[in-house]
């Protein structure tokens, strides 16, 4: 077992500069994906196929009535028990040696099951056109810059963050760091908490949040959808077993008919 790596997002340090978005676009060569202006400083509604990470700008009123900007670097959470990996029928989504979740574009057929099951809705399908003019789709999301990790470099977003709001390293160390920071910011942010949800066995992108998760547009108790669990952990294996059982019953019926039903035609009656 290799070391599990994680990205800690300390939102209390973030100043909303968006350098992480730019660095990500640059390194991963992602095209621009403009959205219309919706009356907010926030550039996009949420992460999408060509915006693997983006900054959310939440206008928040603190308990003492003070106005606050809450910034949050949002990207794929890299769940330890990832719904997308569970439902992917082609094994395109998989866990890497760093504990992160990655997409194998050769295997992805653009079925979109991952999109429908991600509890954080960060994964989306990107449309492409091949040289014959045929359209096809692939699931796209943050890769935690796996190509950089393999070269002993940090993810591009972490590398550029001038406030150290993004830090990357061994997950245990990051967790210790998060606890340390939590103690430091408690008097300034009494609602501060660490967001590393157990419903998905923790995430490899986890947060130190200044306010409850819902304030930041994060689900309070994200989990792998029950339907996905029933589908992949029960229905599918049971279906395979049932195929076996019926097949055995039929073979059994065939053999016992051969053995005991010697009159053959005289019996003759059966019912579908």
């Amino acid at each position, binding site marked *: 077992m290799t070391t599990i790596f994680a990205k800690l997002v300390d939102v209390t340090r973030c100043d909303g500069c968006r350098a992480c978005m730019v660095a990500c676009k640059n390194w991963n060569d992602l095209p621009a994906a403009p959205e219309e202006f919706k009356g907010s400083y926030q550039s996009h509604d949420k992460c999408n196929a060509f915006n693997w990470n983006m900054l959310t700008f939440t206008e928040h009123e603190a308990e003492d009535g003070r106005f606050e900007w809450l910034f949050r670097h949002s990207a794929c959470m890299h769940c330890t028990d990832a719904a997308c990996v569970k439902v992917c*029928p082609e094994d395109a989504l998989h866990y890497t040696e760093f504990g992160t979740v990655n997409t194998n574009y050769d295997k992805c057929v653009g079925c979109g099951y991952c999109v429908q099951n991600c509890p954080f809705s960060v994964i989306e399908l990107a449309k492409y056109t091949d040289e014959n003019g045929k359209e096809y789709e692939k699931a796209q999301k943050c890769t935690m810059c796996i190509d950089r990790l393999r070269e002993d470099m940090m993810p591009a977003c972490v590398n550029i963050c001038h406030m150290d709001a993004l830090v990357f390293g061994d997950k245990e160390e990051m967790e210790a760091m998060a606890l340390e920071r939590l103690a430091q910011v408690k008097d300034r942010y009494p609602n501060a908490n660490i967001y590393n949800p157990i419903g998905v066995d923790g995430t490899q992108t986890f947060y130190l949040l200044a306010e409850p998760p819902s304030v930041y547009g994060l689900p309070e108790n994200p989990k792998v959808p029950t*339907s996905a669990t029933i589908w992949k952990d029960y229905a599918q294996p049971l279906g*395979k077993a049932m*195929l076996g059982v019926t097949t055995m019953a039929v073979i059994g*019926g065939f053999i016992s008919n051969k053995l005991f*039903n010697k009159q053959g*035609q005289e*019996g003759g009656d059966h*019912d*579908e």
Partner: protein
Amino acid sequence: MSNRQQTVKRFSKWVIIAHWTNALAFFALYITALPLYTDFFSWMYPIFGGPENLRLLHRIFAVLFVLPPIVMMFVDPKSLFHWLKQTLTWRKEDIMFFVKFPKEFFGGHVKDMPKQDFFNAGEKLNSLLTITCAAMLIGSGIVMWMPHLFPVVLIQWAYPIHNIAFGLSVAVVVGHIYLSLGHPGSKASMQGMTKGDVPVKYAKEHHGKWYDELVAKGEIKEEKPVKKGKGA
């Protein structure tokens, strides 16, 4: 089997067409679904020109699968509703059927089987399961095909439902095919689903109530008691 055997009409031409269209579509769907169901069948992708083509074929056959009951509603509603009515009507003799049937399934000969309807209890159960599975498969299939029209929760549940119905329907079909092809004396029932008529003897033994109705209506002459030891 002698050619001079007295037969009686069982299924209309449309019922036969609908049945085999459904069967064809089911198998095409089954085959195109296998690699989606388990990696064990991934080798089938190249045969069908890749996963995308396979998924497209699956949808084309899905349309074929949906068509028969709809077409039946226009061309032969009488047969369709007779089947539905029978399938949904359950009496004591239908329950008794399942008490006696296992013995027969494994090669025994049941002498005191209660008289069965036009569709015997086994066929009724098969129809009921088929209808249930088809409803689940088609309903969830539509949601999966056009996810943008439905809420996320519905889409998420469509997958396990499609899966469960798939497993169940395959189990049903395996039993159905075995009983129509593999079991001794199945020729008569197969004849019913290919040519449309069945021997009167078969009607009497398997569908006693229907046989009695036919005799009462004067559509057939009463079968002479079968002499022991002589084949049909």
